[in-house]
């Protein structure tokens, strides 16, 4: 890492330290000023005034994980597209506009293909319709 890179990233590191300082300062002020009277039932999770039933860490709707998977695909794709987007203008000015456009569009077509596939499979629907699942079976 060159000295130049260090200098440019130094404010980022300082900003991180300042953010941590703000957080720590607020917590310290609260620690000094706030009362601490543990006991009673106030450290039970809120469940509308009833005693909580079981743990909240239980099974969860699988749809959320599907959304996560689709996101990963699209995010990786867009990360790969950023370098192409960044040199797009320069390539166009150098007279290679059509060439870079074809590269860019082929990247986007992969993205489009992905979204079309997910759409066709019904992964973009939050509630998969009952009729569709019975039909495929």
């Amino acid at each position, binding site marked *: 890492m060159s000295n130049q890179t260090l200098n*440019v990233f130094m404010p980022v590191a300082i*900003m991180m330290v*300042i953010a941590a300082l703000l957080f720590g300062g607020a917590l310290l002020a*609260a620690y000094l000023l*706030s009362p601490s009277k543990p006991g009673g039932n106030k450290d039970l999770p809120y469940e509308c005034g009833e005693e909580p039933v079981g743990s909240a860490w239980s099974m969860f709707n699988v749809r959320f994980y599907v959304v996560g998977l689709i996101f990963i695909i699209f995010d990786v794709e867009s990360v790969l597209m950023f370098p192409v987007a960044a040199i797009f203008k320069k390539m166009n000015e150098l007279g290679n*506009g059509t060439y870079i456009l074809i590269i860019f569009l082929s990247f986007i077509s992969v993205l489009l293909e992905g979204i079309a596939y997910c*759409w066709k499979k019904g992964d973009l629907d939050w509630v998969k319709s009952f009729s569709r699942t019975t039909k495929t079976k």
Partner: protein
Amino acid sequence: MENTIAGYFLNFPIFQAIAETLGVGLTAFLIFFAFAGLFTVILATVGGFGTIAERKISADLQARIGPNRVGPYGLFQLIADGIKMISKEDIMPRSADKFLYYLAPFLCIFGVLCTVAVMPFSKNLILSDLNVGVFYAIAISSLVGVGIFLGGYASNSKWSLLGGMRGASQIISYEIPVTLTIMMIVVIAGGLSFNTLVEAQAGMPWNWYIFHNPFTFIGFFVFFISTLAETNRAPFDLPEAESELVSGYHTEYTGIRFGLFALAEYIEIFVVSAVSVSLFLGGYQLPFNILEGTLPNELLQFGSLFLKTCALYYVVIWVRWTFPRLRVDQLMSICWKYLTPIAIFNLVGTAIWVVAFDGQSMFQLFFGSGAH
């Protein structure tokens, strides 16, 4: 060093004199530290005033008066709120995951404040003009989503878990249209640093990227809607939907930790509005640069950015008090079936526009390049 705030201030004689005694490295460090602190204080104040603005504007829209007891027009309400939050007991549910419970508010405030490191407040009042600025901003601000999810998960409360899960899926989903729309601007500007993006919009409002071509005009609205969802604002406030999930991911948080979540949310709205102003609405650019190259000009540019951002902030609050909340399935279909295809369409359209018209904007095409 020339792309940073210290590089700018080291051109002034007084700082050169300091640099001679302390050395350039230490002076640069001190300048960075002072301005990072200054920006943090400004943003924390803005976030505090955001809570008042929210209550005042909502009161205005509903023909009420709103908070008016503390100070003139209730302006000191943020101090009262801050003192109240600091002096409340910090309770943690006994069955919570301690480490993650403490980590969650930190990630929220950390992710929001670190975005400020690349925010262009004016041409030179930018902590560091990273050559990957926009990319860095996207990356570091997604820590907020992690914070919200962890806050919901670690509390071990059913309401929190529902809010956290919804928050995570919502924030990651809407990151796709946001990223694609930013990429559209990158294609036009030809660089990832914020100054490259804003410098290209210099001059009159018709040079702003929102008016560059029809696709960027649509793109601005795609970006705006997506950022509403990214910051969990109504009509996309499902993670903390107060009428169905008590308070969502921060149900179990009390005192200062809840306050930090709220502060992070209001600062995030400001930061995200500032990013959309920088990308589409000309950022810090003034129509006339009379005082070019002087310090007052920097302050004017800062004012320009601040005014536009506050206008956008007003719209965000206005939207919140106008539209009803969406259902989860509507939220997901808006993101994946409408915004993402529209964003891809915009990206394709812009790429073809740039190649076909050699990067010229609509107004340059209509009025010749004299419209600069």
